[in-house]
């Protein structure tokens, strides 16, 4: 964590899972034409925790992430990152404030190697320029190698050593997801947003990613915001979760308790299943 991100954090940093608020959204509303995708969502992610956002398909999870990262400025409401108002800030500027994210449907840069993709994650810490490129040997080389060292550490951390020179589109999807996570971590973010990092993965790959997320939080002081459909993973690694349905918050809190909420069961399984569930458990 350097630059902007470091300055945003107070020196008396709270312990992981403490009470300092990393990201706060208040009254977020966002519509697309006549469709109200988010209807006044409030949420607070505390520094150092792994916060899960779950909900049925179309409930507004990805829209929420796009609001937080600046792609869809909210129609109403505000987003604050470590106390700073970032509502309406452009996505690239939000990235510079220490927010990194991965995408639901991979967004790696085809044609570049795994290594170059992860190096691109360092962009916010580098000073690229046309003249620096022209005088590469005196201007750019030292910076390149300094950042290369950091990237190699992340490659080791994510166990991507043997594929670092492969073109990124040629490796299996499970590894591509890992490369995207590595690119996000390369930015040394203080707030990491993962949009379904385990979609389409088998059990072993899921366990790998879960382990990387926990390690990233513990070793790199990252606050994690996770969207995920695999409930086993969500209940295993999230400290708190929030459940969205049709753009509204229907439950919030400790994962197991929130998932057992009748409104959540109704949202996922329908009204009859919810009443049967309620009947079974007095």
């Amino acid at each position: 964590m350097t630059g902007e991100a470091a300055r945003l954090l107070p020196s008396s940093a709270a312990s992981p899972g403490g009470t300092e608020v990393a990201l706060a959204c208040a009254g977020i509303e966002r519509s697309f034409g006549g469709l109200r995708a988010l209807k006044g969502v409030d949420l607070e992610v505390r520094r150092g925790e792994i916060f899960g956002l779950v909900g049925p398909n179309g409930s507004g999870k990805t829209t929420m992430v796009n609001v937080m990262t600046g792609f869809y400025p909210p129609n109403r409401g505000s987003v604050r990152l470590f106390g700073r108002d970032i509502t309406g800030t452009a996505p690239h500027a939000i990235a510079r404030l220490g927010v990194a994210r991965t995408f639901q449907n991979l967004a790696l840069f085809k044609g570049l190697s795994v290594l170059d993709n992860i190096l691109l994650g360092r962009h916010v810490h580098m000073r690229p320029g046309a003249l620096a490129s022209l005088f590469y040997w005196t201007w750019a080389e030292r910076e390149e190698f300094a950042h290369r060292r950091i990237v190699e550490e992340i490659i080791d951390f994510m166990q991507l050593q043997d594929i670092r020179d492969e073109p990124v589109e040629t490796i299996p999807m499970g590894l591509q997801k890992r490369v995207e996570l590595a690119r996000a971590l390369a930015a040394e973010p203080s707030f990491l947003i993962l949009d379904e990092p385990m979609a389409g993965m088998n059990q072993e790959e899921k366990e790998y990613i879960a382990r990387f997320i926990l390690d990233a939080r513990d070793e790199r002081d990252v606050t994690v915001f996770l969207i995920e459909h695999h409930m086993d993973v969500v209940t295993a690694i999230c400290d708190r979760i929030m459940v969205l349905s049709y753009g509204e918050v229907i439950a919030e809190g400790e994962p197991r308790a929130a998932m057992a909420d009748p409104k959540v069961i109704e949202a996922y399984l329908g009204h009859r299943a919810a009443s049967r569930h309620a009947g079974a458990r007095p």
Partner: protein
Amino acid sequence: MFYRRAGIRHTSYRSERRLWPLPFDRGLVAAVVVLLLVAPLVVERLYLIGYLMPWIIWSTAALGLNFLMGGAGQIHLGYGAIIAIGAYASTHLARAGVPFEIAALGGGLASAVIGSAFGATALRVKGLYLAMATLAMQSVVDFLITHVPWISGGGQATLTVPPARFLGADLRVDLAAYYVALSVCAVVTLFVLNVGRSSFGRALAAVREKDYAAAVIGVDPFRYKLLAFWVSSFIGGVAGAVLAFCYYRAISPDQFHLDLSIQLVAMVIVGGLGSVLGPFFGAALILFAPILLNQAVGALAAAFGLGISADLRAHLPLVLYGALIMGFLLAEPLGLAKIYDNVRKYFLVWPFRHAPR
């Protein structure tokens, strides 16, 4: 064969990021550079001025266009206008008494400013719409140059380039002109090569591949597209100045019309989008294939005593030229540079079949 190596044995980041990691490639580059340096001493003047010079200058211009099209993924159908701005601006600067060294940079700067001003408006749109917007730029610049006597010298006038010196060498002497064109080309080539291995080039590639993902890692897509327009136009402007002072020596508006822009786009695409070698191959093919085909058709007709009509004699080379371009792109959509790369990779591991990297 010449290239063969087993495994990857880099021990430092520097050796891994070299421009030409293989000794054979370094030797080849050195040989080409030496050949180009001694060319004026061994090649007849006709070939030096008629073939080598235009090839070097158009390769420089195509490198500039490829920086934008292949590097940042933005199409430009008005690059001829960019070259025209550089040529006219530098000529007028030199006529006002500015030394060539500064006039050439001034030409590049004028192209960069005007080119990226158009770019800023054009970048509100993407893909085909950007193609149309840059096409409009070509028309606007053509019109302004032709109809403003202050720029063109009036109507269909030809503007003579004043005598100029580069570091004391008289540019009216062919030898000096050749070496100036060659040095500019070398600087641009080195620049493009180095962009490919530095953070600037990676950011451009990110914008080219997925601009929303580029934004998420902190790259401002608009800023980088605009920078690509700026740098590419600057290179085009300097190439225009070199063209005016070292080659044409008298410029008129019809030298920079749409057909030039289309030719440059053809050079870039046939040569290989995004490749540094591509523009050199592409420029060679677009410039020389018509001439060679013309001579070949003539020689064949004479050799076999075929009484082909004058019409056919005139048009057959053009038909073959078109077929040649289509044939190359059918064989390898990534252009001549990719064909070269395939051959190179074949020898890299011969007698085996699979190339490392």
